[in-house]
């Protein structure tokens, strides 16, 4: 159940990997769409936290191009609905997330990413 909302917050936390460690890249992904309840208030509150370029990049990787390159000034309902779809309804079930800096692999199985580190990677 990796959704783009959490992917957009997730950076690599391996020891010493502090720059260029976001966003994690998707590899060999299987995507499932699941509908969820539309909550415009939550989205409005969440938009300031979003790293827009990372979200666009990740959405394209998963084959969704419905979002514009730049965050629009006007937040109308149509836009919020597409944003809701991209953030909360696209679930990555299987695949790997790779850190762009240290190339650590975070495998996703059954929708749960394995974020465990080996002993030498713990900061």
């Amino acid at each position: 159940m990796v959704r783009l909302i959490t992917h957009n917050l997730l950076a690599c936390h391996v020891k010493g990997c502090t720059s260029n460690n976001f966003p994690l890249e998707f590899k060999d992904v299987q995507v499932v769409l699941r509908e969820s309840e539309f909550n415009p208030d939550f989205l409005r509150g969440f938009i300031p936290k979003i790293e827009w370029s990372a979200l666009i990049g990740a959405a394209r990787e998963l084959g969704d191009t419905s979002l514009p390159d730049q965050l629009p000034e006007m937040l109308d309902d149509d836009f919020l609905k597409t944003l809701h779809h991209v953030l909360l309804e696209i679930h990555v079930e299987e695949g790997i997330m790779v850190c762009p800096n240290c190339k650590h692999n975070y495998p996703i199985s059954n929708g749960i990413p394995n974020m465990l580190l080996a002993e030498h990677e713990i900061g």
Partner: protein
Amino acid sequence: MSRPELIAPPEIYYGDIEAKKYTKNTRNQQIQADMTYRALELLNLPPDEPAFLLDIGCGSGLSGEILDEEGYIWTGVDIAPSMLEVALEREVEGDLFLQDIGQGFGFRPGSFDGAISISVLQWLLNAETSHPTSSPPHRLARFFSTLHSSLRNPSRAVFQFYPSSDDQIQLITSIAQKAGFGGGLVVDYPNSKKAKKVFLCLYVGGGGGARQLPEGLDGEIEEDGKARFERRREREKSKNGKRKGIKDKDWILKKKELYRKRGKESVPRDSKFTGRKRRPVF
């Protein structure tokens, strides 16, 4: 009180069987739900904004279910794969991560509006290997510092946990303070052995000045047919404040009647003098 954290590390203790047992136990469910509601109360989130929360040690999603009900969007982390599997089966709404909180989080700064954690911190207090990164202080420090940075300013994190000694509380609070958190302990029902619950309430930011910690709950626990005090005999007192004698005339008559029924010989007759005191001159 059982201490499962002393038996095995969490990812092993909560294997397939134990995870199912834990989740099915209705008493567990009730306790977890109560503590989750209390933790949310202590989080004191603004009422009309749907917040994005982190559930640390979400397990099978007993607490997550409540977060769903209350309309929060949440992300859960846990180290026990079997527990997460149960959570998947129960179809909770939040995103789940298999993560060792002692290794720290990789979330971007300011990601979450708050964090709750129910019955988890005590698991961080045992070292599994002799490697320096698995010593409890190191793991706690890593946990609190990465958590501090992934929370929004201002926000709160509330941890319910079962400390086994004051030293443990001291260790945890001092490391949390070093990581930049303000706040402290809130103890509910401090005088009850069963109902006592320890909450660690941590603040990020808060605009300077010491913020008032919320009061712990106190007083009688609601009577709901579960844990009650043993029945205490109320002593009857007569109107003038003196205690009524136990061996009064009624009692003596009752005893004599009993002896007669048992066939005991030489039980004195009952008369108007029965149970009266003798005059002092006798």
